C-alpha cells in the first residue's frame, strides 16, 4: 500500500512537471517603457568684484563675452529634450545698480532670445528668476538652436563709490533642470 502510494505520488508529480506551462507573456510591452530622467547641472557662473566694476567707469560695461554653449543643441540632447527650467540667481553686495543680459545666439551668431536682469544696489534678498521651457513656457527651440551665449554686465551706477560690505561683489548663478526622454 505504501509502495503504491509513493508510486502514485511521484508519477503524479512528474506528470505535473511534464505539463508545466506559463501564463501568456507579452514581450512587446517593452516598447511602452518610458524613461524620462530629470537632469540637473550648473551652467554659468559670473562673479565680479566692485573694483572691476568701478574700473569700467560709470555706466560702463564691465564684462562682455561670447561663450560657446552646445549643451542643448547636440543632436542627441535636442531630440530628447522634453521640458525644464533654467534658474538664475543674482546677488549684489556692491553699491552699484547693475544690469546683466544674456543673449542666446544661434550658430550664425544671431540673437534668438535675450534674458535681462537689473539688480538694485545691495538688495536685501537674492534675485531669483526661473524660466520654463517646453509646455506652458518658452519654446524649446530657443535652447536647441542656441550655440553660444553673449553675456554682458553693465554698471548702472557711478565709478567711485564702494560698498561697506567686506567683499563687495556681484554674482550671477545659473543652473538647468531638464527632463529628457531616454526611452
Amino acid at each position, binding site marked *: 500500500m505504501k509502495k503504491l502510494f509513493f508510486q502514485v505520488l511521484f508519477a503524479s508529480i512528474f506528470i505535473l512537471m511534464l505539463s508545466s506551462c506559463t501564463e501568456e507573456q507579452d514581450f512587446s510591452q517593452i516598447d511602452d517603457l518610458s524613461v524620462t*530622467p530629470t537632469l540637473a547641472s550648473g551652467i554659468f557662473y559670473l562673479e565680479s568684484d566692485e573694483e572691476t566694476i568701478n574700473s569700467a567707469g560709470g555706466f560702463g560695461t564691465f564684462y562682455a563675452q561670447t561663450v560657446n554653449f552646445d549643451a542643448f543643441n547636440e543632436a542627441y540632447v535636442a531630440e530628447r529634450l522634453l521640458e525644464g527650467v533654467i534658474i538664475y540667481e543674482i546677488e549684489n553686495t556692491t553699491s552699484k545698480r547693475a544690469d546683466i543680459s544674456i543673449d542666446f545666439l544661434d550658430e550664425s551668431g544671431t540673437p534668438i532670445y535675450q534674458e535681462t536682469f537689473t539688480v538694485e544696489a545691495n538688495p536685501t534678498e537674492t534675485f531669483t528668476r526661473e524660466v520654463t521651457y517646453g509646455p506652458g513656457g518658452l519654446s524649446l527651440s530657443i535652447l536647441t538652436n542656441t550655440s553660444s551665449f553673449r553675456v554682458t554686465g553693465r554698471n548702472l551706477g557711478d565709478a567711485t563709490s564702494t560698498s561697506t560690505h567686506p567683499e563687495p561683489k556681484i554674482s550671477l548663478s545659473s*543652473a538647468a533642470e*531638464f527632463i529628457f526622454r531616454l526611452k
Partner: protein
Amino acid sequence: MRGFLKTILIAVFGISSIHAQNRQLLYDFNEIPQALMLNPGMKTSQRWHVGVPVLSGLFFQASTSGVTVNDLFANDGVDFTTKVQERVLDVMTRRDDFGSTSQIDGFNIGFRGKNRPDDYYSFGMYGEMDIISYWPKDLALLAFEGNGGNNIGRSFDLGDLSLRGEMVNVFHFGINRKVSNTLTIGARAKLYSSIFQFQSIKNSGSFRTVEGQNNMYNSIIVADMQLQTSGVKGFYDIIDADTGTTRKDLTSLFTERVLLGGSLGLGFDAGFTHQLNPQTSITGSILDVGFIYNSNDVWNYTFEGATSTEGITVFLPEDIDNVNNDLWQDLVDEIDEALPHGENQSGYISLRPVKAYGSIRYDFGEGGRSWSENCGCAINTGGGSNSDFYRNSVGGQLYMIKRPRGIQAALTGFYQKRLGRTLSLKTTYTVDKYSFTNIGLGLNLQAGPVNFYVLGDNVLSYGNIADSHYASLQFGFNIISWNNN
C-alpha cells in the same frame, strides 16, 4: 537607445529564463554516475559507466531573487513603466541578482581499477556557462530618475555595477578511493579551456549633485571602474564583419577555444563520504577551486578618475583677459581629461566560482539485496554498511557558492526512496535567497545497463514557469555495469 535598452532587458531576462548552480537533487544521488562530479568522494558501486556522449548530463538552471519574467511581461493590462517602477525600481536592491548556469557533458567515463578495485577512476569533458549580474540599483535609478529633483544631494554608488560571466570547457580526471568500510575520499583535477570570460566586479565610486560653492549645483564624480573581457572581442569582430562566412568563422573560433586554443586554467575538486554508523553518513565536497589566466583575446575597459563641475565659471578680475569663446568645450575637455576611459590588453586571472556541499544522511528500511549485488568488485557492498541496502534515505544538505558579493548559501532537506532495483526517487525542499517554496523531484531509472535520470527543481512553480524565481532541469543517459559485462 531604444534598441539598446530592449537588448539589455531581453538579455537579462532571457538569460535568466534559460539557465544558474545548486544541484541539490543530484548531490549524493549515488545511483547516478554524474553525482561524482559534485562529490568526487561519493560512494561508488558500479564497475564502470559510460555516459551517452552529449546526453549524459544536461543541466540548465535559472534564478532571479527579484523580479520575475511574469512580473514584467504578463499580459495583465498594467502599464509597463508602472510595473518597472513598482516591481523593479522601488523594491529591488543591490543584493538582488539574476543568475544562470548551464552545463553539458561532452563525454563522461568511469571505471574501476583492475589492480586496485577500491579505486574508481573517472574522466571526461563538459562545457559550462555561468553568468551572474547583480541589480545595479543606483545606476538604474540614475537612468530612470536622473540627478535632479528629489535626487539633488543623493550619492549614486557606481559600485552597484557587478557582473561576471564565462563559458568554459573543462577536461577532468578524478580518482575515487574507498579507504575503509567507513571512509571514501576522492579528488578531481580540472583543466579549463576558456571560450570567453568577462567580469566587472571591483567597481567603486559615486556620482552626486549638491549645492555648489559658487554656482547653484556642483556635480561630483569619483570613479574606479573596469570591465575585463577575454575571448569576447574575437566573437564580436566576426559578427561585426558579417562577411558571409560568419557562421563558419564562429564555429571555427568556438571549436578552437573548446580544444585548449584560448585562455587556460587549472583547478580541482575534492570530497569525502564518512559512515558514522551503519545507517548514518556525512559527506562533503569542494568544487572548482581553480583559476583561469585570461591571456587570449583580452580587451579591458577602464573608467577612472575624479572631478567636479559647477559649469562655466568666470571670476573677475582674474578672467578679465580671457577672451576664449570655447569655455564650454574647455569644460567638457577638462571633465574628459579628469575621467579618462581607456582600453588595455593586460592579461588577468579570474577565479572560478568555488562551490561547497555538505550533507548528513540517515538510511532506513532494509530492503534486502542491493541493486549492485552483482558487482563482483566487493566495493561498497555487503552488510549493513551499504546504504544501497536500504530503501529509504533522509537527510539534509548545505550548499555554498562564492559569488562576487559574497557567499550564497542554500539549505536542503531530502528524502530518497528506492523502489526495487530499477527505480529511485528523490525529493528535496530547499531554502535560499531565491525561494522558500522550492520543492524538487528527481527520478533515476535503471533498465538493465541503461541508466536514465531526470531532476527538476521548484516544481510548484511549473504552473507558471515565467513567474518562478528559480528553476532548473537536468537529465542524462548512461550505460552502467556492475559486473563483468
